[in-house]
């Protein structure tokens, strides 16, 4: 029996796709693939909405439970967990449409917008740390920026994940300090040193090879970013005097202009009076 090319193409497309029979989901397309599983876009037939379906290729104990414990605006919520007829586990979560951070960074964005994203990621991390959850694999590929500017941190706290080179802390045991390292590396990735020396100093302190030299907590790192944005001195950098003067001038620009105007008026009147 001869099989037409279109049938072969169809089989090639369909065979690797998971069989969702017995679930309420209808498969749409593959979104992404990682070491632990594949993420698909699917439609929830009962609620008539699109969801992201992560199907785990290897059994991972409690990944969904870890994420479900985290209820935060910057953490993708889990809707349901289950098992497919072939025995693989899956969980359904909110489908985030937008750009992954490694793609988003290539567009033109101002420093303030880049720092806003880091602040949102940092807030999610600080929240997770307060629940004794660490991310373990924070990298641009695990951060999504939605079409309305919302930021989501994904792929949380799986024990088997050992981090990604360039974003993984050098220490052998991963803990909250390793997440701070990864956040610093993410800051460095998002804000190149040429964009701001002060932000580069914050990123360097956060991603110091010695965990003792890093920020004590994510909140301390975010505090330094806040101080930078308010034009205040930051913990990470003993700035040169010219930079301190520049910061003072930009913080007090209106007052300095008014004092300059007063001086100019006085000079004008003095010379006008004499000549």
């Amino acid at each position, binding site marked *: 029996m001869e099989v037409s090319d279109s049938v072969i193409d169809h089989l090639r497309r369909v065979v690797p796709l998971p069989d969702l029979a017995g679930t309420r989901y209808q498969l749409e397309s593959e979104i992404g693939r990682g070491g632990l599983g594949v993420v698909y876009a699917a439609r929830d037939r009962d609620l008539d909405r699109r969801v992201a379906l992560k199907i785990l290729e290897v059994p991972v104990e409690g990944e969904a439970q870890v994420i479900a414990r985290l209820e935060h605006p910057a953490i993708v919520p889990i809707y349901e967990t289950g098992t497919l007829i072939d025995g693989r586990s899956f969980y359904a979560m909110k489908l985030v449409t937008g750009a992954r951070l490694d793609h988003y960074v290539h567009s033109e964005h101002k420093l303030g917008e880049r720092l806003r994203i880091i602040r949102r990621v940092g807030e999610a991390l600080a929240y997770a740390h307060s629940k004794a959850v660490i991310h373990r694999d924070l990298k641009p590929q695990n951060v999504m920026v939605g079409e309305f500017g919302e930021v989501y941190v994904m792929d949380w706290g799986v024990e088997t994940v050992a981090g990604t080179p360039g974003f993984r802390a050098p220490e052998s045991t991963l803990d909250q300090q390793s997440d701070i390292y990864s956040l610093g590396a993410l800051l460095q990735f998002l804000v190149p040193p040429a964009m701001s020396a002060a932000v580069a100093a914050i990123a360097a302190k956060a991603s110091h090879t010695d965990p003792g030299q890093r920020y004590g907590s994510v909140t301390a790192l975010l505090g330094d970013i806040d101080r930078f944005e308010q034009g205040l001195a930051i913990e990470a950098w003993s700035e040169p005097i010219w930079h301190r003067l520049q910061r003072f001038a930009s913080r007090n620009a*209106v007052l300095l202009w008014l004092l300059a105007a007063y001086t100019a008026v006085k000079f004008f*009147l003095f010379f006008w009076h004499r000549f």
Partner: protein
Amino acid sequence: MNKILVGLIFGLGLGALDGATALFYPETRPLIVGILIGSSFKGMLVGVVSGWFARKVQSTGWGIAVGSVLGLLFAFFVAFMDAKSGKPHYLEIMLPGFVVGAIVGFLTQRMGSPSPVNTLRN
């Protein structure tokens, strides 16, 4: 610190400094005490009203505008009284008064605590 008190202190201080610049003019040196008192009082009034305004409206732009208008207005009264007693000095009194008013208006917006009602609203 209360914004009205901030206005009073800066108005008094800057008014005194502005009055002290009269020392640069030989013809006004004999009148320096009267100028200092008048200028400080004028600055104080501008500061108190600007501080009161800053408690009601929290806007740097409006603070500067109100401060400068008040400075100009009070400086006009001083210049008017000065003109009645001899040679008029409208420009010499009103122009710096205008800028000092703007500075005081700005400072009352930036410094001091707002009224409790505004704090709650914000």
